[in-house]
């Protein structure tokens, strides 16, 4: 499937038309192999690969957007089942997508190997002999040579060889059977070298992606200001390892989020509230080889991950974590601490869930909104109009009943299942929802106790990633880029010079598109005749 870049040489696919009455098993195998490694097959596989990639951008993918897949299943349960049965939510790991690219790469290997041998041989060989009729070449120029020149044609041929050598051609001066001496020259071997390097580098990319992916991992963790995260499996909220991952591959380190800083624009009229910068100030503690530890202070920003030994730590999100204390009717603490609220809009109206299973009274849960800069819509609903806490307010709706925590099934901490619960504050319960500003304590309904809004902290969503293949993918990708650039831009051409029919004949043939071919011939001719102005042009192009 390597581009031969030769429009005139029609050898590529000729073999596909081969037919034979009885070819046997080996013959069939050979025929299939030839089909597979033909240029036309490679081309069709390429186009199929492009088409096969399309559905992955239309339907949500489990790898990139798992929530989107869940939503899709909720909205179209039947259609989703059909799509799922043909792996439409896992397009890029699906059997059909894999089949196409594996066939494509087999076709590539089958083409690259023989061409590498051919090219290696070409690199050692002398340029091909001068054709008997140079007029047939795509670029041809004949200049009238003076009788002396014709007589002394050897001299002219020698200087032609010298000139071409200077222009970095590989040159052969040959004496034909008829006694005439001609020059054949060839240059641009880098074109094919680049072509082969490009295709082999693509194989490198494929292997680096596959193997690197196997040893990679990435985990997510939400850390509130003041909290410390320890790099082990228990330290993550979610974790996705590659196929060859082992837990001992996690480098031991811990990291404390000292402070999280956000800067929003208050200055430019068109830009109010736009985030300008997010900065996580962290202290990381790295274990040294001799058992000691080193503390390091650093700042993580969106495009500036922290590079620790064995992993990179990225800042992927942030939000508010109001500090809330709930006391039961006896005054004992039933819930306390910063609680992560998920931002719902760009002004950080945030939604949080609090579950209180073990108070003095019945189990209850709270659905709560946090408004950093509160305002009331005309409908009476609250909203936030600026993302920084200029005028913060916390609102709560309270539900009594079974929290569903005793079933043993893992529950999403950001969701409250109210199917077995009764609303006792807010909404249509008849009791106003609770509202409080920082420092304020309010009573819970039904004698459940009190809630105190102690203060506001911020949290950072961190992503810890490790992919040893990444650097190799980059290496091979850049190699491929260099290869393809050479193979598309270096002209590969053959030039012949002969003195025939009392003429100085210069001809050239290019592999692929070569805009300069005729100019080259004219220049060489002019150089040899010492005449830069006139030359009788004769070309059949």
């Amino acid at each position, binding site marked *: 499937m390597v*581009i031969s*870049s*030769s*429009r005139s040489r*029609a050898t*590529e*696919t*000729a073999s596909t038309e081969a037919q034979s009455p009885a070819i046997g098993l080996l013959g069939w195998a050979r025929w299939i192999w030839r089909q597979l490694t033909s*240029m*036309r097959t*490679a*081309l069709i596989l*390429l*186009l199929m*690969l*492009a088409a096969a*990639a*399309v559905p*992955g*951008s*239309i339907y*949500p993918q489990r*790898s*990139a*957007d798992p929530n*989107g897949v869940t939503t899709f299943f909720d909205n179209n349960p039947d259609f989703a089942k059909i799509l799922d049965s043909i792996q439409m939510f896992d397009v*890029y790991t699906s059997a059909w997508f894999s089949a196409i690219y594996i066939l494509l790469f087999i076709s590539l290997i089958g083409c690259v190997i023989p061409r590498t041998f051919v090219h290696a041989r070409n690199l050692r060989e002398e340029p091909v002999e001068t054709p008997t009729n140079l007029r047939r070449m795509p670029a041809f120029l004949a200049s009238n040579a003076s009788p002396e020149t014709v007589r002394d044609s050897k001299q002219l041929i020698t200087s032609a060889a010298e000139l071409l050598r200077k222009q970095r051609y590989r040159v052969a001066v040959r004496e034909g059977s008829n006694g005439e001496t001609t020059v054949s020259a060839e240059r641009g071997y880098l074109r094919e070298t680049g072509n082969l390097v490009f295709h082999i580098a693509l194989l490198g990319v494929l292997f680096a*992606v596959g193997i690197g992916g196997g040893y990679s991992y*990435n985990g997510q963790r939400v850390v509130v200001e003041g909290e410390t995260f320890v790099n082990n499996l228990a330290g993550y909220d979610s974790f996705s390892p590659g196929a060859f991952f082992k837990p001992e591959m996690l480098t031991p380190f811990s990291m404390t989020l000292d402070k999280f800083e956000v*800067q929003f624009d208050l200055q*430019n*009229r*068109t*830009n109010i509230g*736009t*985030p*300008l*910068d*997010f900065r996580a100030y962290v202290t990381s503690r790295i274990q040294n080889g001799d058992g000691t530890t080193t503390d390091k202070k650093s700042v993580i920003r*969106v*495009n*500036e*991950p922290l590079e620790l030994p064995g992993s*990179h730590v*990225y800042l992927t999100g942030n939000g508010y974590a109001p500090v809330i204390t709930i006391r039961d009717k006896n005054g004992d603490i039933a819930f306390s601490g910063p609680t992560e609220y998920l931002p719902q809009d760009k002004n950080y109206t945030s939604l949080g869930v609090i579950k209180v299973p073990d108070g003095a009274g019945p189990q209850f849960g709270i659905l709560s909104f946090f408004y950093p800069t509160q305002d009331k819509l005309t409908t009476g609903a609250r909203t936030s109009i600026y993302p920084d806490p200029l005028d913060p307010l916390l609102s709560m709706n309270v539900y009594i009943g079974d929290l569903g925590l005793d079933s043993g099934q893992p529950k999403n901490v950001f969701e409250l299942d109210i199917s077995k619960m009764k609303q006792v504050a807010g909404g249509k319960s008849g009791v106003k929802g609770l509202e409080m500003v920082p420092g304020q304590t309010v009573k819970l309904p039904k004698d459940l106790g009190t809630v105190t809004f102690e203060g506001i902290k911020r949290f950072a969503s961190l*992503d810890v*990633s490790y*992919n040893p293949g*990444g650097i190799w*993918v*980059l290496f091979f*990708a*850049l190699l*491929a*880029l260099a290869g*393809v650039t050479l193979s*598309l*831009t270096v002209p590969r051409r053959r030039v012949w010079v002969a003195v025939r029919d009392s003429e100085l004949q210069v001809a050239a043939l290019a592999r*692929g*598109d070569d805009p300069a071919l005729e100019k080259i011939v004219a220049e060489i001719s002019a150089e040899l005749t010492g005449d830069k102005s006139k030359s009788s042009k004769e070309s059949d192009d």
Partner: protein
Amino acid sequence: MTNMQLNEGLSQISLLVVYGAMAIYTFSFLAFATNLSRLASNKDETRATASGAEKFGTVMLILAGILHGVAVALRGISANRVPWANMYEFTLTGSFIVVAIYLIAMRLKDVRLIATFISGVTLLALGLATSIWYVQVKTLMPALQSYWLVIHVLVAVLATAFFNIAAAFSVVYLLRSANWLTKAKASIFGFARRVIDLFPTSDKLEKLAYRFNIIGFILWSFTLIAGAIWAERAWHRYWGWDTKEVWTFIIWTIYAGYLHANATRGWTGKRSAWLSLVGFVAILFNFTIVNLFFKGLHVYSGLK
């Protein structure tokens, strides 16, 4: 800490300059169209007046291009950063680069005949940009605050510009080699045929498209790699099949197919010209539909 001062007034001036450039592009487009129709005329005396229209069109195109460049620069200065961070700015800068490449390539005589197409497409792009994609000047969201914005997006714009010009040649090539057009009898087709006959031979058109496409392909490959490096910094993975990544891959694969087609017997000529067009349609799709309607991480249109 980041202090980003926007100059709203200057961005308004930039927009006015864009409108000015659009007016002049209109003159240029009309002049080139007149030139073509006169060249295609049956009458000798009409044909003789064609070069005047071409000269006028070229002068207008250069003038509009200069204004266009000024508008790009003013937009950048007003935002205090590179002027390609949302769809409006990408279109503004991208169409300017198409014009700039065309003006540079104009030394080649064969290129000149697509002037009507260049001025027309630029006018259309600017019309869309100013009417439906316009956003006021804004600061960069933190994910875009990276020098990769300069490299990755600039090279993507350049690649798009080269693919665009190649697509123009492929369109003409396909018209040139369209049998139905050669056989059609209605007089309007006769005129169309005469216009198309003004263009370089099929062979030359094919070669021109190929040359612009290979530059586009190399630049696009670089865009893809630079995007992966940036994604590794900003999104903790170099490749994640985000919708925009998917389409970058699809486009790359289509043009890889185009290059193979150019070296496969039975696939040169019309089929490869179609692939060149399909590739460019995929680019347009990636820039418009994917930007505006597909869910993904590249949500930078700035539109709500």
